[in-house]
């Protein structure tokens, strides 16, 4: 008896699941391989909402994305927060989960956003400990995501690429590489985005985020690029995706994130097609 044919891993393309986009996503599942659900939106969800997500997960690939654990803190992540991720994965049948390399609280102070910790030995050790604990409690290893920051993280003695590589290799995890975050950090702090990309552990990239942002004014005439998720993905991010496709041969999951000023679904699907074309062009250039 012949065994089942092995499924060849392939690149996948999807959208962040938002209630405002739900109808459009459901009407175009033929053009979307997977959706990414913000885990924190569903920690307190009613049973019928979780059953709806489970039904959705049976139709299209689904992954969970956490935003409030603070994995890259020197303080331990509370196990009750990890328990909630574990329960949500079990309830929805999600294929996996991810979180940010950020700290979000300290000493009882809630920052209310993803903050870049000092890039130091201590935060590397803290992140590796937290990721190990998360994997044990949740039951599967998260992907970890690079964040955008408007401030050069104070009291850092490693640069972003070194810091990320040390955590990814030290914790034995794969990277969810947000290319707009990479781009924003590069232009805000005088780096070349493509050089920064090449210095990351590209063999560990499993997934990619694409989003947009806008320039904001600061003191003394300063301008910085804010990653806001309410603008279209810029050409520079697609160029980075093409380069990533050239340099990283492994299958990648690419997700476009949009958190507001929602355009017609057709525009997001067009951006997904642009992402497909960019990654394919990179693959072709490497062949």
């Amino acid at each position, binding site marked *: 008896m012949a065994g089942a044919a092995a499924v060849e891993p392939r690149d996948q393309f999807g959208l*962040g699941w*938002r*209630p405002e986009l739900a109808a459009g996503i459901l009407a175009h599942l033929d053009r979307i391989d997977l959706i990414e659900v*913000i885990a*924190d*939106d569903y920690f307190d969800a009613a049973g019928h909402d979780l059953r709806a997500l489970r039904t959705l997960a049976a139709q299209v690939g689904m992954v969970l994305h956490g*935003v*409030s654990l603070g994995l890259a*803190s*020197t*303080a331990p992540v509370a196990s009750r927060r990890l328990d909630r991720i574990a329960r949500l994965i079990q309830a929805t049948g999600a294929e996996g989960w991810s979180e940010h390399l950020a*700290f979000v*609280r*300290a*000493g009882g*102070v*809630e*920052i*209310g*956003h*993803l*903050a870049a*910790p*000092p890039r*130091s*030995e*201590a*935060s590397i050790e803290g992140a590796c400990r937290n990721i190990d604990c998360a994997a044990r409690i949740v039951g599967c290893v998260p992907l970890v995501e690079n964040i955008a*920051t*408007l*401030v*050069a993280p*104070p*009291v850092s*003695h490693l640069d972003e690429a070194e810091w990320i590589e040390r955590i990814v290799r030290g914790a034995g995890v794969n990277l969810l590489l947000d290319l707009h975050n990479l781009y924003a950090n590069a232009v*805000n702090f005088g780096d070349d985005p493509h050089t920064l990309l090449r210095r990351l552990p590209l063999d560990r990239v499993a997934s990619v985020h694409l989003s947009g942002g806008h320039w*904001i004014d*600061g*003191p*003394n005439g*300063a301008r*910085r690029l*804010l990653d*806001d*998720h*309410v603008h279209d993905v810029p050409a520079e991010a697609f160029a980075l995706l093409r380069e990533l496709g050239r340099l990283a041969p492994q299958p990648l999951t690419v997700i476009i994130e949009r*958190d*507001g000023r929602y355009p017609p679904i057709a525009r997001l699907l067009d951006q997904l097609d642009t992402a497909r074309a960019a990654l394919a062009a990179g693959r072709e250039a490497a062949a």
Partner: protein
Amino acid sequence: MSSPALEEFLARLYTDEPALAEFLQMPTETARAAGLGDAEVSALAGADHIGLVMAAASFRVKRQRRKIRHWPWHWWRG
């Protein structure tokens, strides 16, 4: 370098406008008063002050949106 105390100090700069203003005027004294070590105090004196102001303002907007409108968590990031 880098410690829970340092993270707490940074969290206060990002969430407490008077604390940030005091730090920007007297970074060394403020950091020392928070009990940080010499190396951290020295590094903070040369920190990216423009970025601190911009990041704190951005975080403040996110917190206000959540408080006023009960935004779902995905608004936490954008």
